[in-house]
């Protein structure tokens, strides 16, 4: 497995995971920095992402949509707070309306990504934090049924591989 450690902090509502990749830091950074590559892993299975705008400089924005199996296109945005290529990226991630504008009463998460060289490969430390308990509850309401089914299917596929 590539995920080597995982920690959940119930107090600060934060998930921290450490993953290791058998590739240099620059190549892992490219998975974030190249929108065509980011599209290939950001969305869950069955929901490929399309990056409409992608600027990872501080203050920059990313706007994207995903295309679901029924043709639905949930939209999202990032706002980059800190970027130090190829080692650090910090952004907020939220939901957008049909025009791609942030929906202000929808949950927002803070994501921090740190890449460092580790034994010839790359160590990625990632943390995702809910900004409030209300946000967390909303995420749960939305994600519950469908999201979980997909995730389980995905896990099955991985276990069978």
């Amino acid at each position, binding site marked *: *497995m*590539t*995920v080597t450690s*995982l920690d*959940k902090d*119930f*107090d*600060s*509502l934060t*998930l921290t*995971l450490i*993953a290791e*990749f*058998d*590739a*240099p830091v620059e*190549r*892992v950074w490219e*998975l974030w920095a190249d929108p065509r*590559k980011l599209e*290939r*892993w*950001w969305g*869950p*299975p069955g929901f490929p992402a399309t990056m409409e705008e992608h600027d990872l400089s501080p203050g920059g924005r990313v706007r994207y949509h995903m295309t679901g199996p029924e043709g639905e296109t949930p939209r999202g945005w990032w*706002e980059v707070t800190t970027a130090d290529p190829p080692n650090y990226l910090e952004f*907020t991630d*939220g939901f957008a309306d049909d025009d791609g504008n*942030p929906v*202000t*009463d929808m949950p*927002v998460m803070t994501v921090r990504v740190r890449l460092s060289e580790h034994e*010839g*490969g790359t160590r*990625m430390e*990632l943390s*995702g934090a*809910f*900004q*409030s*308990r*209300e*946000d*967390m*509850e909303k*995420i*749960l309401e939305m*994600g519950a049924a469908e*999201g*979980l089914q997909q*995730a389980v299917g*995905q*896990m099955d596929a*991985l276990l069978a*591989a």
Partner: protein
Amino acid sequence: MVVDELGETVVDEVFHALADATRRDIFRRSAESELSVSRLSEAYPMSFAAVQKHVAVLERAGLVTKTRRGRERLVRADPRAVELARRALDELETAWRGRVERMSELLAELPNPQEKHTTKGEER
């Protein structure tokens, strides 16, 4: 800017409540068992009133509930808050594990521009 707007609309009581080490400790203890405010205040180098204030912050955030029994005020973590946090973090874990797995597969699949690292593509 978007974040600021959101910060005002969503109630950030939980984060405020848990930003303090004493309050986190009170929350943890009260998740294990029901404790009176006076018992709690014996555990910290601060006054009864100070502990009571901390408890009030946790209560406002919906993290603990306070009930009166006789002359005592008993504090208990709201199990719903703990359960919600657990479920939300589980979902987040599933989402990110999936992403990391896809990143890993993508790295194995994409041509490596500088062939200085020999990537063992099929390793899982």
